[in-house]
């Protein structure tokens, strides 16, 4: 294989450029968090607009067998989200949202043997399905059940495939990525935009003027299983 001089120099420079870019991102110092305002979300318990927006845009398959389902965001009962011991019994069946928490200290990225999932400097726990070998160790490590595995080829189960975002093949793990393709272009995640009652708030924890900061400073917010030390970035204002 022959490579031109230009190509070779670019190849050599690539690691340096990558380091420079990484430092640039770190210096920018964003830390993305999401706040779910449960009172607003519970106003319409049957609403699934955030889920539909996410799943349709990201070509998430609808697999009829619940044991093999793939889901990036879904509605879950309080009892299951926060633990039966944390929730008064009269509220345990109320619904809230579950998604990847993009933890500060994620166990899933620690255990991945190929580096197919990692934590970015801006807080997002990313997923590289090209490198995933499908060992599902990350799924065993996640304390929140946020990850899904493609047990079968998902493409037949995608109703209206969008060409703007790739689908996945069988044998890889996938999960919510906080719509990283949108937030790096300055837009909001699809679930946040789709929510009719504004229950989902997304922003930069490090920005004192952001809406998430104001929300978290004024209201009491909980996270899922804080005692595990994972430091979730998804807060529930209850």
């Amino acid at each position: 294989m022959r490579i031109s001089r230009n190509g070779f120099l670019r190849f050599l420079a690539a690691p340096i450029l990558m380091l420079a870019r990484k430092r640039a991102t770190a210096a920018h110092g964003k830390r993305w968090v999401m706040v779910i305002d449960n009172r607003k979300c519970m106003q319409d318990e049957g609403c699934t607009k955030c889920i539909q927006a996410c799943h349709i845009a990201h070509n998430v398959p609808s697999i009829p067998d619940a044991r093999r389902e793939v889901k990036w965001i879904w509605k879950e009962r309080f009892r299951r989200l926060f633990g039966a011991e944390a929730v008064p019994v009269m509220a345990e069946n109320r619904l809230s949202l579950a998604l990847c928490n993009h933890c500060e200290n994620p166990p899933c990225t620690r255990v991945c043997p190929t580096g197919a999932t990692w934590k970015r400097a801006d807080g997002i726990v990313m997923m590289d399905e090209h490198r995933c070998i499908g060992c599902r160790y990350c799924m065993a490590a996640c304390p929140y059940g946020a990850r899904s595995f493609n047990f079968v080829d998902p493409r037949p189960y995608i109703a209206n495939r969008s060409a703007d975002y790739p689908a996945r093949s069988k044998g890889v793990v996938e999960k919510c990525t906080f719509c990283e393709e949108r937030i790096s272009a300055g837009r909001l995640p699809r679930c946040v935009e789709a929510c009719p009652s504004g229950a989902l708030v997304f922003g930069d924890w490090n920005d004192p003027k952001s809406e998430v900061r104001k929300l978290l400073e004024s209201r009491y917010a909980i996270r899922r299983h804080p005692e595990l030390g994972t430091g979730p970035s998804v807060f529930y204002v209850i």
Partner: protein
Amino acid sequence: MHFPDQQQRAYRAWITVLVTLALAGAWCYLRQLNMGLGLTGLSRDVTWGLYIGQFTFADGLAASAAILVLLSAVHGSRSFRKLVLYGQILAIASAIACMLFVVADLGQPSLLWNVLLHPSPVSIMFWDVVVLAGYLAITALIVTVTINCERKDLPPPRWLRPVAVLSIPWAIGMQTVSAFLYCGLPGRSMWLSAILAPRFIVSAFASGTALLVLVLRFARVRLESETLRKARTLIAYTMALNLFFLLLEVFTTLYSRIPEPIDHYQASAPWIWISGTLAATSLALLNGFRRNERLLPVACAFTVASVWIEKGFALVPSGFVPSPLGVVTTYTPTVPEILIAAGIWAVSALIATLLFRTAFAVRSYNGEKPYLLSVEQEILIR
């Protein structure tokens, strides 16, 4: 060496069964490559099942050769000296089974090289691959050199002893790393226990030695009664420790009454009961060995079954039940999944059979009589 017809037939039947199982497993695996892991009984909640459970058990079998090396090479026990080669042959076959189980469990096995191309030293699974491959290399080297030296009737080279001694901490490290796969995950409270590694090591030594005794009995290998007595003592002590550690875990779970561990315990309770009962029975039988030597193979079979159920079923799938969201999803392996697992064991048994045949042939050529034959057969052979 000429064997009587009955044994030839038995041997051929054994090989036929193994090859058939291996081919059936290979065909089912091709179907799994085509369809994906949907062919198995796994689900979004229970993501590791039969394959990883069998991997854990096979990992223990592979590590068990270390106790034989420890007792013979380090502590100079003469009874185990002849057994070391056989134990290491079992270790090679088990290590290969481990690798095959891991590959069978992967969703994208063609990308397996990513583990080596993009190593992630903070991941325990990376170290598991490294340690397993290294152990296979060490054990294969030891077995090759030992068989070659015995064939040429030469003493083994001086450097073989340090390599053999190296395999002891390496094997213990291998089982520890396998335990670390489980006991470092914050969200799986059933596995989040420091005693998991000691349980693995102790049950590995018990089941590996017991399986070795069973295999040698099955192959009608001549074993001195002193060797059998020492093996029985080893199995008894390790099995007793294993049962004790299990009871420690059960106590911590039930006495503290923390809900999540109790839920896990309730999900795996049937398996724990079966495994514990088998363990207790094997201990009783091992104790009765003094009076009746024929109890030893039965006791060994119970030991192997107890550890197989403990590692293969009580530990791995049950750790996922209930899920982190508190959902109970049952796991039942499908027929193709079972056939793939059986096929992998068959391949491992084939490799062990071939290596054992080589070892027996070399040893009998040297004038040893590894086989236990009846008086008539001895006369026939002479």
